[in-house]
């Protein structure tokens, strides 16, 4: 028997999320069993199954997000940037300087 991962959408506006797995000999049976294993109380409006063997894990998941300082990638590193940008633009405008749209080097 194969293991099938089961995914659900709680409402039509929700993203598909993983809710669990069922054992089943084939796809047809997996679809039949997933319904009643996870949805018999009306937990969702949509259900998908996928063979576990068709899913693949990334290498070295423990290093996801990096291991050196990446705080600059988080939104809180940029609080007040909009206000600063406005200040810089008005400062530049008062000196008659404009920044062109930068393009990649060639």
């Amino acid at each position, binding site marked *: 028997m194969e293991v099938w991962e089961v995914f659900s959408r709680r409402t039509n506006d929700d993203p598909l999320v993983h809710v669990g797995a069922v054992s089943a000999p084939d796809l047809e049976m997996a679809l039949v069993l997933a319904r009643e294993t996870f949805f018999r109380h009306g937990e969702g409006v949509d259900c998908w199954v996928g063979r576990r063997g068709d899913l693949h894990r990334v*290498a*070295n998941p423990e*290093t996801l997000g*990096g*291991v*050196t*300082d*990446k705080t*600059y*990638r988080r939104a809180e590193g940029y609080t007040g940037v909009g206000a600063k940008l406005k200040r810089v633009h008005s400062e530049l405008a008062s000196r008659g300087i404009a920044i062109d749209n930068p*393009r*990649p*080097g*060639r």
Partner: protein
Amino acid sequence: MSSDARLGLLLAIADDELVIGHRLSEWTGWVPYVEEDLAMSSIAQDEIGHARALYEIAATINGGTPDDLALGRAMADYTHAVICERPNRDYAYTAARHYLYDTADAVRLEALTSSTFKELAELVRVLRIEERYHLDHARTWFRRLASGPVEARQRFSDALADALPEAMTIFEPLPDEDALIADGTLPKPGEEMLAAWLDVVGHDLEEVGLERVMEADAEAPVGEVLPTSSGASEVADESPRPLRVPGLERRDGRWVHTAGFSGAGGRSGHHSEDFAPLWEEMTALHRAHPGARW
């Protein structure tokens, strides 16, 4: 050990990372598809982050700040390999250089894990964890483009052949290499790391039937970079050494570096005209507003 030699080693590696990171960052927003744009941009940020970590150690030696080291030096004080400053051209060249640079960096970092320079060895162990992803990414593109449709394979192998001679200069000996070797700061000479890297690259190329890349560079000009036209004379070597004989030779089934480098001189601060506009842009804010904070 003179701390100057250690400072020189740190700056050479940090400058490589900073300058190639800057080049890769130029792709942000322009890569042909968004997932790859994010991946390449992350790699660019990683390289610049690694440069920062190296400048932080360097700053403890020379008493400056990491910002001053990264952005406050004259062009001729940067000692990155010339390959790092070359423009991105197209994605074939970018991917080819990315592969060559990151495989070379991997060889260098592996050697440095056994450095007697403790702070550096410790940092390198952390950096290698992130570099592993850079290698995965570079190798995935390498295999994909090398076995891709005819045009992809052709453009990628041309780009590899273009980039390979200059990529070898990543291992151009540092001015103080003898001193660094003597006290174990640098566990292996540049030539030894170059040989290890040529093995890796040669093997990868043979696996995809692109050995011609290794043969192509025998005709590449050998010697130091010499800016040709206006504008960048301040980075030119005032008394260029005579051109040396190439390059790469195949002996007993292995690629061997015999003598000379094409596009050498980066480790002594000699750069191509391509570096001037990069330096101008990269350091503009720091020069206009010293000490500015975001």
